[in-house]
């Protein structure tokens, strides 16, 4: 088989790429494979990454279990895009934002493995949509402050912080909500 790039030398590098669910066979000679190296191997590339990720998610394609796992359970499926959890494990990618909700129970061990044990976002919040999340974060911070103020017996300042928390909680739960 000739290299599909230069149409000159015999192809010596063969692989399958999966893009948006479409499979493409790629056959290149050593020289063109090297030239295209960056294109195929940069960090955003799909090349071999799916296999690698599947391995990390603990379902390596070459080691697919011969018996289905937990056959007694209904397969978990995304309520919105209909992707199953098994499909997600196979391609290492979600189908839509709702997949995160649909697979919520299954995700922590995967996220821990991929993110050095972390499962919670501590970064930026969207400015406009962040809404009550900004307030909730602030309340968490203030609660920690309140605790240390009480420990230090700074009761006056503690009272101010407590009042701040109450106001924010009212806002979070809507004006009529209980601030408990």
């Amino acid at each position, binding site marked *: 088989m000739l290299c599909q790039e230069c149409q000159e030398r015999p192809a010596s590098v063969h692989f399958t790429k999966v893009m*948006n669910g479409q499979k493409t066979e790629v056959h290149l000679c050593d020289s063109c494979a090297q030239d295209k190296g960056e294109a195929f191997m940069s960090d955003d590339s799909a090349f071999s990454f799916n296999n690698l990720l599947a391995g990390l998610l603990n379902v390596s394609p070459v080691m697919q279990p011969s018996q289905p796992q937990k056959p007694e359970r209904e397969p978990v499926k995304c309520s919105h895009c209909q992707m199953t959890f098994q499909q997600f494990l196979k391609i290492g990618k979600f189908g*839509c934002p709702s997949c*995160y909700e649909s697979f919520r129970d299954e995700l922590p061990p995967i996220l821990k493995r*991929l*993110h050095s044990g972390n499962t919670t976002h501590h*970064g930026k919040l969207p400015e406009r949509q962040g809404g009550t999340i900004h307030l909730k974060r602030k309340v968490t911070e203030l609660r920690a402050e309140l605790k240390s103020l009480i420990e230090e017996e700074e009761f006056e300042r503690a009272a101010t912080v407590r009042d701040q928390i109450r106001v924010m909680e009212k806002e979070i739960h809507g004006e009529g909500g209980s601030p408990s």
Partner: protein
Amino acid sequence: MSLEKFLNQAVSSWMNEEGPSSEIVLSTRIRLARNHRKYAFPTVFTKEEARAVAEEVSAAVHKADERLEVLKMEELQGLEKRVLVEKHLISPNLAEDSGASAVWLSDDEEISIMVNEEDHLRIQCLFPGLQLKEALSKALQLDDAIEQHCDYAFDEHLGYLTTCPTNVGTGLRASVMMHLPGLMMTHQMNRIIPAIGQFGLVARGIYGEGSEALGNIFQISNQTTLGKSEEDIVEDLQRVVDQIIAQEKSAREALVKASGIQLEDRVFRSYGTLRYSRVLESKEAAKCLSDVRLGIDLGFIENVSRSILNELMILTQPGFLQQYAGGFLRPVERDMRRASLIRERLEMEEKKDKGGSEI
């Protein structure tokens, strides 16, 4: 087309400007992955959905910064897309997908925003030298401006929801491209690569994972996107990069002390190869360019500008060679073109040097 004219069109500002620590750090890249709340991810979306996403997020990008200009993938030729990939302005994935994908670029090509890549939006800022904080702040500013017009997929506990679970949370990939010939020659990279892994960072050769880095160029980036704020991720990367810069500098000093003349000989042999070869394979070109760049840094070579490595590493890629030649080239023709482009470029530097103040 004359080489000078071609260079003016081909070289982005991040390639030829000298940034902080630019003797070792070639460039800094910040990337944020974002998605529209309403639509399926590019993994499964239909063509109609792809078009709707492209329309909606493109409108948001345009409103966020009216100076950005769009290039639609379906309207570009294969070679044009390849050149964009080689300039690191789009990913190979985006180049391959012809359905409703696009890239928004700033005039100086410091900003590039990909639409319908693996995620609906990939906001990217590329700066010369080591400028992590500056690039992050620019990217976050753009992100805020786009979010004013686009409902992002965001979860209170998981952060920004991305197609791949490796990006969820901040969606941030911060990377620094480093030229590390001293650490390679003193065989220290094998020790450094696993060590930085313990900090949630990863080092890759830019021309392939794991294997020897062509041209001694490594990309150091964060691997984890959950559990740390954007600022902390960038700060951790900055600390490690500062350490690597210090180690590279001391490796270079040690090399000059221990075998200065051999090093100088190696540099000038490589310069000779670049200056006079008629056929140059990409691997040899990368090695020689790295040596010459080191020679410039160490003061052995004075008449060549430092940015030449960044520039020629990019310009001698197949896409650029073919664009310069004006058509398809067989591999052997590319090797010839590569040699002649480098010869011409170095000749230009020599003339510039002799001409004194000519710029």
